C-alpha cells in the first residue's frame, strides 16, 4: 500500500534521513522507533507529502506521492507531535472547522463530530475551550481532528508525549481499536519502546536518519537471542566495578543504569560467580540481581550503543 524507496532528506549539509526503505500493508500497524533526533518526524513529513525528499520516492499504491501529493492527502490522517489545534476555540469548533475544510457539512458533519468525540472520550467536553483541557485531553482532540474525515491511513507522531499514564493508556487503547476494529493502517512513531511493542505488528528501528533494524518484535529481540541480560542493583555507584566488568572479555556489553549496572552476556555463560567475586574484591554492595530475556530496549542499545531516551 505504502512504500518508500531510498528516501533521503538533507538540510543544508546535514543528512536528516538517509536512504530509508520501508513499507506498510493495508490494515497493518507499523512502529517507527528511535530516539529524539533519529529522523522519524522528517520521514513521516516526507511520507505525508509535507516536505519533498532530497532524493528517493514515496509510493502510494504504486503511484508517486512526491509528484502528486493529493493521492495520499485525501486518505491520510496525521496526528502531529505538537498539539495542532486552536486552543482559543472549543473542542466542537475545532472539529467543525477541520471537518468543513474536508468538505463535511450539515448533519453529516454534526454526526461525524459526535462520533469522533465519542471515540476520543470527550463528548461531555465538546463545548469547553481547548485551553481549559488537560494535556491528555488536548492530545485526544489532536487525534480526533485526524480521524474526522475517516482516513484510510493514519500517521501518529509521538502522540503520547508529555501526558499522564492514564491518558496514555486511553490513547494506546484507542489506537489499537482503530487498527483492529476499524482496519485503519497505522504508522506509529515513538521513542517509548513499550508503546511500539504493545501496538505494532512490525517495527522499524531508526537512528541517525537510518533504518538500523526491522521486523516483528520477536524477530528483533531474536537479534539478542543468544544473549541474556543481567541487571545488577547496587547501593551506590562504583566506577571501579564498572571498569573491571568492562575489562572482562566474556561480558559483551556493560551499561550504567539509574540503579546499578546492566550487562549483556552470552546465554548460559554462568558469569554470576565471577561477577560476585569481582564485587567482593572491590567491596561492592550488591542489592539485587536479575537475569532477564533481552527487550527491544536492549536490542536498540545493542545496535546503537545508546538508550532510546538519550
Amino acid at each position, binding site marked *: 500500500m505504502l512504500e518508500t524507496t531510498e528516501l533521503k532528506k538533507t538540510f543544508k549539509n546535514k543528512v536528516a534521513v538517509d536512504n530509508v526503505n520501508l513499507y506498510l500493508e493495508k490494515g497493518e500497524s507499523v512502529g517507527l522507533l528511535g530516539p529524539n533526533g533519529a529522523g522519524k518526524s522528517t520521514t513521516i513529513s516526507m511520507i*505525508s507529502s*509535507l516536505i519533498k525528499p532530497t532524493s528517493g520516492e514515496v509510493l502510494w499504491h504504486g503511484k508517486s506521492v512526491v509528484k502528486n501529493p493529493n493521492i495520499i*492527502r485525501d486518505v*491520510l490522517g496525521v496526528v*502531529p507531535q505538537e498539539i*495542532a489545534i*486552536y486552543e482559543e476555540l472549543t473542542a466542537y*469548533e475545532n472539529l467543525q472547522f477541520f471537518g468543513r*475544510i474536508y468538505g463535511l457539512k450539515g448533519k453529516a458533519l454534526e454526526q461525524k463530530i459526535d462520533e469522533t468525540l465519542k471515540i476520543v472520550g470527550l463528548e461531555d467536553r465538546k463545548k469547553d*475551550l481547548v485551553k481549559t483541557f488537560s494535556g491528555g485531553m488536548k492530545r485526544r482532540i489532536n487525534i480526533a481532528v485526524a480521524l474526522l474525515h475517516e482516513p484510510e491511513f493514519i500517521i501518529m507522531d509521538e502522540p503520547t508525549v508529555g501526558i499522564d499514564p492514564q491518558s496514555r493508556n486511553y490513547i494506546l487503547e484507542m489506537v489499537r481499536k482503530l487498527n483492529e476494529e476499524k482496519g485503519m493502517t497505522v504508522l506509529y512513531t515513538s521513542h517509548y519502546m513499550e508503546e511500539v511493542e504493545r501496538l505494532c505488528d512490525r517495527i522499524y528501528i531508526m537512528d541517525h536518519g537510518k533504518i538500523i533494524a526491522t521486523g516483528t518484535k520477536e524477530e528483533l529481540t531474536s537479534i539478542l537471542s543468544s544473549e541474556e541480560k543481567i541487571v545488577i542493583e547496587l547501593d551506590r555507584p562504583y566506577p571501579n566495578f564498572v571498569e573491571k566488568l568492562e575489562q572482562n572479555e566474556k561480558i559483551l556489553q556493560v551499561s550504567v543504569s539509574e540503579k546499578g549496572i546492566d550487562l549483556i552476556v552470552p546465554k548460559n555463560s554462568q558469569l554470576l560467580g565471577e561477577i560476585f567475586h569481582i564485587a567482593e574484591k572491590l567491596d561492592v554492595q550488591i542489592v539485587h540481581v536479575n537475569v532477564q530475556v533481552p527487550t527491544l530496549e536492549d536490542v536498540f542499545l545493542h545496535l546503537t550503543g545508546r538508550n532510546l531516551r538519550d
Partner: protein
Amino acid sequence: MKNIFLLQWKRFRREPVLFFSIFGLTVLFVGLFGGFSQVDKVEVPTYFDPSVEGEKDVWLERLNEADTFEFIEKNQDSIIKDVALGYVNYGLEVSDDNYTLIVAAEHQELVLLDQFLKQMFTEEVRINTIASQIDNTEFRNDVLTALNEPPLTVEKTTMNNESRPSYDARLQALFGMTLFFAIYTVFYSLMNVAREKRTGTWNRIILSPVKKWQMYFGNMAYAFIIGFVQISLIFLLFKYMFNFPLGDSMIDILITVLCYCFAIVALGMLVLGLSKTVEHLSALVPIVAVSFAMLGGAFWPLEIVSNNILLMISKVIPVTYGMEALTNIALGGQNFIDVSSSLALLILLGVLFMGIGINLMERRA
C-alpha cells in the same frame, strides 16, 4: 478560503482585546496630538505703547481679525515676567508705527505671527501715510469700500488642481496616528499565520483539500478587513463626533483606506516572510511600524524633512502615499481620481511586497 477567513473571525471573537487596545490607543493619541475639540486660537499677550493709547480698541480689533491668533491686552511687566518664566512663549508690544516681539526662545508659531504683523503694519503704515496727506476718515472709508467691492478680482488656479493643500495639525495627527496604529493591527492579525506554522495547524490545513493560495488569501482578507474597519471607524468617529475637517467626500477617503490597507497587508506578508520565528516577528513588527510611520510622514509632515536620502526612502513606503492621498482629499478638496497616482503606487507597492513575501515564506516552508 471562506472557512479559513471565518475561522479568523471566530478566533477574533474569542480574543478581541488586542484590536480594542490598538483602537483605544489610536483614539487616545489622535486626541492627545490633534485635540478632541476645535483648535483654539493661539493667545498673544499684547501691550500697547502710550503712543497708541487712544487707538487701543481699534488696534485690538484689527489684530484680532487674524484666523490663528487671539491678541489679549496685558500690561508690559506681566508680559515680560511671563515670557521670562516660560509661562508664555512670546508677547507683543505695539507702538504707533512699529511692533516688538518679546521672545525668550524660538518657537514655530513665531514665523507665522511675525509674518502676520509685518503685513498688517506695512498696510497700516501705507494707509496712515496717505491719510495724513488727505482727509483721514474719508480715505479710510474709501479703502474699506474698495476692499469690499474690488473693481478687479484675481482668481488663482493651477493645472489639475494640484496645489499643495495647507497643513492642518489635527488632520496630521488623525491620519498619522491612525495609519501608524493600523500597521500594528494588520501585522498582529497576520501573525496568526506564523503562530499556526508553529503550532502545526498550518501543516494540518496543507494536508487538507484547501489550496495554499486559499490559506494565504483567507488570512490576508481577514487582516485587510480588520485594518480597514479600524481606520474607517476612527475616521468616522473623529469626523462626526469631534468635527475633524475630513472634507466632504468620505467615499474618496475610504477608497484611499482600501488601497492603504492592501499595501499594509502586503507589507505584513513581506515581514512574515523575513521572520524565522514568532518571536523574531514580534520583534520586527514595532521596528517596521515605527520606522515606516516616521519615514512616511505619519508623525510629522514630510515637507519639513530636508534630507534627500530620507525623502528617497519615503518613496517606497506606503504610509507616504496614504498620508499624501488623505491630506489632498481632506484639505485640497480632491477626489480619488485626483489622487490616483498615490493610490496606484500603494497598489504597486502592495503587489511587490506580497510577491516577495509569499515567495520567501514558501522557500522557508
